[in-house]
């Protein structure tokens, strides 16, 4: 329990730092967003409209920096992230709410698939090498390592572009882009099928991108475990290979790579942003690009904040899961 409380405290602290970074960022950067915004109107703006924009950006010059900071914190706690300039008068919160389900769905799906496939392949690669080692190199291991390296070195946007060109455009198997055919209701069965059809290629791309890291991590972790005494002992006892591989080695090899989940999630999120851009997928990465192109700073910051908080929460959940599956941490935590 005390462990849990401590983790929650760290979570809140990090969230606070992230929010503060988000507050500081536009104020540290050269040129202020409000002036940029005003410049876009070519100076055709009355002093009062100018004032209104400054206030809306939270860059109220009459307020001290500390005052600005506290009103910013207050706004965030009430879920108010300001007004988008691109989609005026829509609020940043409402734009994010529309885009978030698309991204979460795909990221969740691809993360799980990539994890399962990556772990599986990494495990088999290590096991094959471990058992075939004396005489010859295992072909599978020899092939899988460079594959994993290549997948992690793959520019996600490029892979997406190539797949759009060859699979969607040339072969016509999937739609070229978008999330759903315009005019189709999301909840109808035709709509759901269409959503799935639009999601296949982006999800496939993202899974490939995310898989490379897991293959390599799991392979190395499994090789390390295979060197452990308890595995040697299991071999000496003459246990069947299958049981050594799955019940002894793999279960222990998965534990340490859980701690790398934060990094893996970062890769998925990064890949997701690029993939959404190429496929014009209506998620939050695409929205981020729209915000960047239109110099829509409130929207940009709101999206960054959501990304940060979501990642924080995901990492927290993984950490909790880790406590649950690794009894050693549980014992330590109980102290």
């Amino acid at each position: 329990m005390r462990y849990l409380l401590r983790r929650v405290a760290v979570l809140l602290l990090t969230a606070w730092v992230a929010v503060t970074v988000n507050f500081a960022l536009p104020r540290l950067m050269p040129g202020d967003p409000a002036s940029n915004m005003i410049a876009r109107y070519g100076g055709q703006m009355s002093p009062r409209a100018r004032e209104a924009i400054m206030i809306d950006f939270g860059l109220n010059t009459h307020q001290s920096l500390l005052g600005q900071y506290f009103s910013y914190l207050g706004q965030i706690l009430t879920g108010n992230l300001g007004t988008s300039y691109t989609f005026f008068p829509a609020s940043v919160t409402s734009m994010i709410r529309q885009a978030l389900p698309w991204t979460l769905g795909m990221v969740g799906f691809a993360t799980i698939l990539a994890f399962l496939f990556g772990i599986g392949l990494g495990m088999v690669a290590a096991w094959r090498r471990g058992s075939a080692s004396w005489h010859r190199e295992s072909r599978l291991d020899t092939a899988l390592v460079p594959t994993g390296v290549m997948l992690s070195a793959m520019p996600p946007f490029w892979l997406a572009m190539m797949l759009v060109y060859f699979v969607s455009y040339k072969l016509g198997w999937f739609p070229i882009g978008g999330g759903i055919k315009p005019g189709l209701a999301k909840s109808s069965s035709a709509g759901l099928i269409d959503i799935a059809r639009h999601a296949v290629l982006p999800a496939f791309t993202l899974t490939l991108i995310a898989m490379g890291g897991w293959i390599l991590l799991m392979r190395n972790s499994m090789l390390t475990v295979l060197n452990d005494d308890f595995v040697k002992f299991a071999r000496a006892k003459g246990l069947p290979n299958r049981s050594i591989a799955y019940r002894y080695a793999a279960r222990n090899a998965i534990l340490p790579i859980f701690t790398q989940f934060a990094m893996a999630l970062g890769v998925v999120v990064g890949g997701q942003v690029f993939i959404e851009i190429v496929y014009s997928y209506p998620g939050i990465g695409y929205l981020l690009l729209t915000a960047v192109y239109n110099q829509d700073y409130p929207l940009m910051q709101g999206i960054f904040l959501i990304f940060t908080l979501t990642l924080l929460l995901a990492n927290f959940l993984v950490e909790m899961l880790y406590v649950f599956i690794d009894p050693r941490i549980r014992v330590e935590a109980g102290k």
Partner: protein
Amino acid sequence: MSPRALLHNRRAAVGASILVFFALVALLAPLIAPYSPSNMNYTPGLAMSAKHLLGTNSNGQDIFSQLIWGARTSLSVGLLTGTLICLVQLVMGVFSGYVGGKADTALSSVTNVFLVLPTLPLLIVLSAYLRGGSVFVLVGVIAITGWAWGARVLRAQAIALRNRPFVEAARISGESRWHIVLAHIVPNMLGIMVANFFGAALFAVLAEAGLEFIGLGNPSTVTWGTMLYWAQNSEAMLQGMWVWILAPGLCILLLGTSLGLLNFAVDEIANPNLRRD
């Protein structure tokens, strides 16, 4: 970890060969490239031919020449950022782990925050604020966002080495903290640091290309990333100009793979559990 061990590792040899190849291309670009990469005076949209090996793009530039010149930016951004990241990691990871105490608490909590900030969105937001900057702005931004993970790994290593007898001996003989870090700690974790360097360079190459692809670099410079930016914006795909997209991406992938292979191989050599005996 000796250089000889690297040569005997097949993955390292392949990675190093690709890297050397690209380095030569980058160095000899003015000699190899048949045309100027920015000259827009050729017929746009030409197919592959003996005169234009990879054809021309819709701006009337020679794709093959652009590809060769593009190697310069990618390679130098990768190596420069990799070095910068290593230096940050030296302070935030190695030094922090070695000195311990309050300094370590402060430094490692900064690391922990950077660890959970979403890297790519942070990169995009930072570059959006600093828009239109030079390649050096990109290098700085990428270095700021990409050091945290490695720093954590190095810190753990430094903590493990901190109380070894040879380090204690150096401490007792009155050597300064930085001297101990550089002369006694770093040489004992060189393998991991070198692996980290290649990992950071790989991250930088991909990040630079990605930022340029979405138009956050300087679109008038010729790099693999800006080539893809122009290709995407000219709807190269719909015009069937797939070479324009395929070629720069393939180069990024190859350079990235070489850095990734080196990262993996050095890690393998430095870690006895992964070694083949």
